[in-house]
């Protein structure tokens, strides 16, 4: 349980930024 918490918390910290980077890339590619 503890590991899951840490895993999820770490993902919650890192993933939003990663997802945003991917979204930005996608949108730029689409615009181009």
């Amino acid at each position: 349980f503890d590991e899951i918490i840490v895993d999820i918390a770490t993902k919650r910290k890192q993933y939003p930024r990663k997802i945003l980077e991917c979204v930005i890339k996608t949108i730029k590619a689409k615009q181009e």
Partner: protein
Amino acid sequence: TISRVKLLDTMVDTFLQKLVAAGSYQRFTDCYKRFYQLQPEVTQRIYDKFVTQLQTSIREEVSEIKEEGNLEAVLNALDKIVEEGKDHREPAWRPSGIPERDLCSVMAPYFLQQRNTLQRRVQKQEAENQQLADAVLAGRRQVEELQRQVQARQQAWQGLHREQRELLAVLRE
């Protein structure tokens, strides 16, 4: 305010003090009563060594944990974040447990920037198109004017051509 690192050290010290106080020499000798009656000085030394060793070991462990987790830096960083946010009275945002929902606010700044950029582009393009439209209308008027002039000259020459034919007819007569 006291830093978290200092607070941690204080708490551990307090814990140790109370633990040692609980395991007093009196209690130690009560438990090892017969040995104490046999060897009082040795008992005293053993007890002192027990206390020192326990404290040293525990403090060393705390230092090790601090180093391992880079705890001091982390706690100092937390102190700083708390200090910076101390004026914020209301309960701060917390993850809702639904990633999609929380993600909206993370993406919003970029999308807002997108929207603003697009708005500026559209306005710029609209202004440019307005100028172009004005130029097109002006151009149309010029074309119409030129057409009118050409038509007028053409009609003039056609009129001339009729009179030419009329002249020929007269001359032929």
